[in-house]
């Protein structure tokens, strides 16, 4: 995990029973019933020049299975990257996704999750750090098909210079999906007056007995927090870095693999 090749996949724990098949363009992964695994997917820079990465992954989670899926995208400065993930979640199965968009000229992260079985659960987390002329897009769909499903979605963007961040998230609760419990949040921190955040959280509810909420914020570093830190002796630059780090660290704390969490912490500290 210390050196990055592009792309790299790692399944934890190493488990021969997991079927992970296909070409580099389209892969399929089936997590058998009652099995818990983590998948780490990393994309490092292949070159400093113009190139494009396109990937598609289809995941099927059988009943009572759990997948924790980490995706770290750190492509070259001129690269474009389009990845799409389609997930089918069975009864009482759990899909957790943690996406970190850290580098590349134009990144597009698409995730479609279908909660097919009762008591299915998903969590979609994302952090996108864009600066210069970077554009980072997130398009997610969570489709609640059966009753008693749970979904949690939190995407955070930190946008500097002329960068652009997009969050486009749709949650659908089908007629049969009673007792669905769903929340969706997108928060953006703008570090420059030219940075742009586009946010479109959307709920479509066809059932009548559900608990759903969604919201979005776009803001700047708080002058009150800045002054508080500076009054304690931190320089303006130190205070700024600390607050950016604080905003990002909530997402990094979700990562359950210590080595990966440390890498992400360092990345954010270096960037801020």
């Amino acid at each position, binding site marked *: 995990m210390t050196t990055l090749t592009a792309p790299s996949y790692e399944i934890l724990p190493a488990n021969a029973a997991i079927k992970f098949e296909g070409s580099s363009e389209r892969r399929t992964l089936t997590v058998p019933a009652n099995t818990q695994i983590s998948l780490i997917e990393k994309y490092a820079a292949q070159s400093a020049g113009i190139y494009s990465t396109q990937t598609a992954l289809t995941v099927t989670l059988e009943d009572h299975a759990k997948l924790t899926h980490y995706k770290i995208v750190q492509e070259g400065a001129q690269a474009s990257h389009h990845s799409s993930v389609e997930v089918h979640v069975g009864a009482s199965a759990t899909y957790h996704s943690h996406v970190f968009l850290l580098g590349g000229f134009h990144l597009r992260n698409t995730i479609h999750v279908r909660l097919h079985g009762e008591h299915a659960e998903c969590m979609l987390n994302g952090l996108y750090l864009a600066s210069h002329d970077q554009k980072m897009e997130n398009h997610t769909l969570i489709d609640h098909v059966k009753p008693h499903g749970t979904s949690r979605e939190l995407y955070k963007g930190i946008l500097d210079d002329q960068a652009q961040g997009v969050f486009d998230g749709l949650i659908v609760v089908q007629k049969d999906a009673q007792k669905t419990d769903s929340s969706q949040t997108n928060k953006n921190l703008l570090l420059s007056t030219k940075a742009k955040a586009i946010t479109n959280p959307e709920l479509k509810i066809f059932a009548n007995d559900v608990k759903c909420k969604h919201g979005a914020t776009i803001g700047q570093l708080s002058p009150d927090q800045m*002054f508080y830190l500076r*009054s*304690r*002796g931190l320089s*303006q630059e*130190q205070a700024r870095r*600390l607050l950016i780090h*604080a905003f990002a660290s*909530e997402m990094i704390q979700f990562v359950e693999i210590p080595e990966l969490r440390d890498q992400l912490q360092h990345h954010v500290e270096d960037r801020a």
Partner: protein
Amino acid sequence: MLEIKNLHASVGDKPILKGIHLTIKTGEVHAIMGPNGSGKSTLGNVLSGREGYTVTEGDVLYEGKNLLALAPEARAAAGIFLGFQYPVEIPGITNNYFMKTALNAVRRARGEKELDAIDFLKLIKEKAKVVEMDPSMLSRSVNEGFSGGEKKRNEILQMGVLEPKLAILDETDSGLDIDALQIVSKGINALRSPGRAFLVITHYQRLLNYVQPDYVHVLSAGRIVKSGGKELAHELEQKGYGWLENAKPATVV
């Protein structure tokens, strides 16, 4: 240590301070009392360098140098501490990390050696005891989800860690119940020393029962209208601020 001469300050176009004269010597505790809107918090904010306040006239000298020219962090490094009336919440940064970063920033600026994690932990645990703060609160995010009393204790803890020369406490007693008030007062008294001065800003006299000031000044409409010893606080408590409303500016103490 601190000389405020004819200080005038505005927020936007609105003049708030209209000629403050005040001299504080090392080791002294001064209390500033006054009704709401008299300019108490503005004085604290101007002294600590908050943005949004314009000094239109007058001077502030700290250890003989022009304080108003310094950035907030330079004031902290020079030994000035502001205890906030409304301490700010910072989700995502632990109390421990925040205070270690602050202490080391100040130590670096003063040309002192930075503390490593072990030495810092020893220090912070010792200081936390003084304000009866549970060590678990040190690993929580700064002020996030803290009660009013816990936030104020956290301010006093930060003061204990940073060991300022001049501490300005802006309505530290507001929103405290009697137990929290006693703990906070204990924390302040523990720091009283011949090398340190305090400017205690308060609306009520009750804090001054526990933290006995050497001097009490009454602020009204942006001016100090009366100065005296600690007995002045008791007199105010009995007669109310109305007693002084039409008083003339006091002479320089």
